């Protein structure tokens, strides 16, 4: 039997192993000296947990990728959806990780997190101690206390089930917060922040994808029109101008059937509107019709994300390429001159200015 022992021992030693699931190393960042800064939310691939956060300094034209992982030695999560900054804290919404991280915007270190969310999309602050978080696949908007990182309540959305639940971007006008309802929805809802209840709704086209408010207190949303075969309907998408005070549609700009506009954004002075529709488009908020020519014509790039620098007016547009490699962000001046381009993470979808 000694032979068996030896053979077993030999078998144990025969193959070593090297498939380490590595731990990260925490890096120290301090980017407080630089005034400007752009955070890029890279969604990553759904169910692979490879979302990342990138940071770009427009002054030095330097980019830092995977900053959340490098600063915290842990992953950001699955599908980084959006980010906003309030009082030096960045709030990063990670959709399929059911979490919103709070990070220091200079060191990128985590300072806290809100968990137990259904499928968070966007966060909007009402005060230091109260914020709303919209969800998909839930017919509620979560009310949270960001100071305590806890959920304090819910706003039930009428005529919406969990399965078809979808609330998205939020803008505030006075005591009211307006929210576009996107997936299998067609409306903008109006929430009274004093009572945390939905007090009104406005039907627009099928699937309004984004929402902003210009310098004249006009809300802008763009619909994607649904898709072919959808039981909810399929129509030509439209851009809508809505008066925030009266909560009525002032103007509808129709696109061609089959177009796919998205990512409505404003410049720093909120008097110019930008959106994606294969090309990048720019329009004065007082214009009566959509321009004939795009701001940046389609050049083989699959535009996925868009932002405008509130200070310089530079336009940043993200190319997701094939969605399984580092995306590219192109930076253009107001005069459509290419100023810089840099690789970020997988599927750059949202931006946040420091």
């Amino acid at each position, binding site marked *: 039997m000694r032979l*068996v022992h030896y*053979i077993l021992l030999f078998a*144990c030693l*025969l*193959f*070593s*192993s*090297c*498939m*380490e*699931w*590595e*731990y*990260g190393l925490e890096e120290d960042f301090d980017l407080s000296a630089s005034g400007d800064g752009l955070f890029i939310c890279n969604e990553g691939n759904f169910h692979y*947990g*490879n979302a990342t956060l990138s940071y770009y300094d427009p002054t030095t034209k330097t980019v830092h990728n*995977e900053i959340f*992982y490098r600063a915290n030695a*842990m*992953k950001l*999560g*699955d599908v980084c959806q959006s980010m906003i900054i309030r009082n030096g804290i960045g709030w990063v919404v990670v959709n399929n*990780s*059911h*979490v919103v991280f709070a990070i220091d915007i200079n060191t990128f270190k*985590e300072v*806290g*997190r809100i*968990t*137990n*969310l259904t499928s968070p999309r966007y966060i909007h602050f009402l005060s230091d101690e109260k914020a709303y978080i919209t969800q998909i696949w*839930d017919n509620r908007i979560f009310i949270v206390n960001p100071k*305590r990182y806890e959920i304090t309540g819910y706003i039930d959305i009428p005529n919406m*089930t*969990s*399965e*078809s639940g979808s609330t998205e971007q939020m803008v505030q006008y006075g005591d009211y917060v307006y929210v576009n309802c*996107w997936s*299998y929805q067609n409306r903008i809802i109006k929430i009274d922040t004093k009572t945390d209840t939905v007090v009104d709704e406005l039907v627009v086209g099928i699937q309004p994808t984004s929402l902003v408010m210009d310098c004249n207190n006009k809300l802008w949303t763009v619909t994607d029109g649904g*898709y072919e*075969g*959808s039981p*909810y*309907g399929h129509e030509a998408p439209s851009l809508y101008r809505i008066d925030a005070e009266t909560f009525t549609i002032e103007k509808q700009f129709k696109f061609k059937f089959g177009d796919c506009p998205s990512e409505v954004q404003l410049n720093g002075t909120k008097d110019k509107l930008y959106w*994606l529709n294969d090309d990048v488009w720019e329009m004065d908020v007082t214009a009566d019709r959509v321009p004939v020519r795009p701001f940046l014509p389609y050049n083989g*790039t*699959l535009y*996925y994300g868009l932002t405008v620098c509130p200070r310089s007016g530079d336009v940043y547009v993200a*190319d*997701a*390429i*094939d*969605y*399984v*490699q*580092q*995306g*590219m962000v192109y930076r253009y001046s107001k005069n459509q001159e290419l100023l810089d381009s840099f690789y970020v*993470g*997988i599927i750059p979808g949202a931006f946040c200015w420091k």
Partner: protein
Amino acid sequence: MKKLLLILYVAISPFMAWAQEEDTKDWATKGIHIRGISVYGNRPMKEIGTQQTKFDTVILKENIALSMADVLTFNSAIFVKNYGRATLSTVAFRGTSPSHTQVSWNGMKINSPMLGMTDFSMIPSYFIDDASLLHGTSSVNETGGGLGGAVRLSTKPANSRGFGLQYVQGIGSFKTFDEFLRLTYGNDHWQVSTRAVYSSSPNDYKYRNHDKKVNVYDEDMNIIDQYYPIERNRSGAYKDFHILQEVYYNTGRGDRLGLNAWYINSNRELAMLTVDHGNDTDFENRQREETFRSVLSWDHLRDEWKMGIKGGYIHTWMAYDYKRDLGNGIMAHMTRSRSRINTFYAQADGEYYLGKKWLFTANISLHQHIVVSEDKNIIRQDGNKAIVGYRKGRPELSGSLSAKWRPIERFGVSMVVREEMFGREWTPIIPALFLDGVISKKGNVVAKASLSRNFRFPTLNDLYFLPGGNPDLRKENGWTYDAGVSFAIGKEGIYSLTGSASWFESFIKDWIIWLPTPKGFFSPDNIKDVHAYGVELKGNLDVAIAKEWQLGVNGTFSWTPSINVGEPRTPADKSVGKQLPYTPELSSSVTGRLSWRRWTFLYKWCYYSERYTMSSNDISLTGKLPPYFMSNISLEKVLSFKWADLSLKGTINNLFNEEYLSVLSRPMPGINFEIFVGITPKW
């Protein structure tokens, strides 16, 4: 290392003690089974030029708890992508995708007509008596659409006399229970077998989560500490039940009738990602499946010809539920997906030998799929409810003719032509040419080569899934060839050594890939052109090293670059000329089996090289899947009494207790154990 050896010793020491006790017995008089060693010299006409990997019953029945995914992982060099224990496992040949692998069970295709792929974790190896891999071109002999290859699975009559019973109980780590029962009856004409498998486990293995940290806050909610938590695999429980009924009737005059019916009832949770910060009690993520597969067959054999007719039916009901606790104990549906697939199958095939030099074969099969897919319940604009989904039917017709010619014993050539029709669309003629020749009789050195064209139609989901299905997709198409040599040497009863090496190359155009769209859903398109090539090596050694000692070693190795050769999608695209993501370039497996009397020790090892997670092959901190090594061992003892045979087996999986991921964010279990006790009464 000392700790590991201690664990190993504790695990096997009862068997050692038993072994020493048995040493005193006279085994010689009781007879010792040494597996027959034969030299593989003959080359069946049907297999002229084909590249096949066959799995014998020793491999297939090695462990009751293994799925075919586990068997293929440790005994072949094809890539098994495993999303975790008892979760989706797919198989891909030669750098292709899982949907390029065609899978048949008793002749009937079992690839999902919706997804195109097959979940091998749902196929218990104990239900399979005969399995073989048909690499690349060789799959055209069996079916179309196998751009990577085909996996052929089948059952066989047990050849029992009278009543037989076998029961095996397995108990393992993570409260895993595996039970197997087989009842057989046989006489000169009838062979009846009933097999049942039930596997269950909470599957809540512990692991240290390197992907996230737990925060410790002070009273003012400042983080004062962080640590990597030791977590359990959350929401990973499973309960799988399989029952297989077989009835064979052999007239004894060249006719055989067979009935195979296989029912599956599976209830599996889908484990949470490592980066999920949700509470597992607040979410339910569950997949249920009921599948019934049946094949009725008639084979008519004569000296020079044979024909067979088969009819079959598959019914699959699948449910996926993603629910969320609303805080009041009510679980609200976030997603409620249902699909029903009915497939009717008919096949006829014939073979005719013209002398000893010619063999002609013909085959035609029809699979008629009827699919109902319901993915989401919504409220329409008019306030009424509606379901997002599709209902489609599609006939899939495939026919082939072949002529195989062996003018002299040392040389054979085979020509196959196949044509397929899916829906109303036909493929062009699919030709395949196979050659083989004996280079040297000494050593049985045989050279083989083959060349074929092939096509794969889009799946029903590719075409019709809502949202995103693309009815304008073209079928994927490709050319592939391979060439190689094999040898077989040995001495009857002493040793046998076989080996083969082959080179392959394939070009696939219009590869279908699902990508996100600006509208928030995924949609497929004919995106990529791929050039895959490489080398496959196989070797097998069986040797009687001493009286009552037998050693068997089986090894495989593959080098399979699979390169994107399409046009750049955008000017910034870095993926052209790069290895496809999640496709390892190198893979290998080794199985060592040492038998002494009625003891068998098994060592299994497999390896996959680093899998890129980006098409650009960039390696990031958050997207790293380092090379993957895995070692499992087992020790089995068979005790023979007058009234029954008893088998005792202990297995150790993940021997080196590695913390590892097979797929990003999917942790795998550390070292784990299972013990099996089996009984086969002697009536």
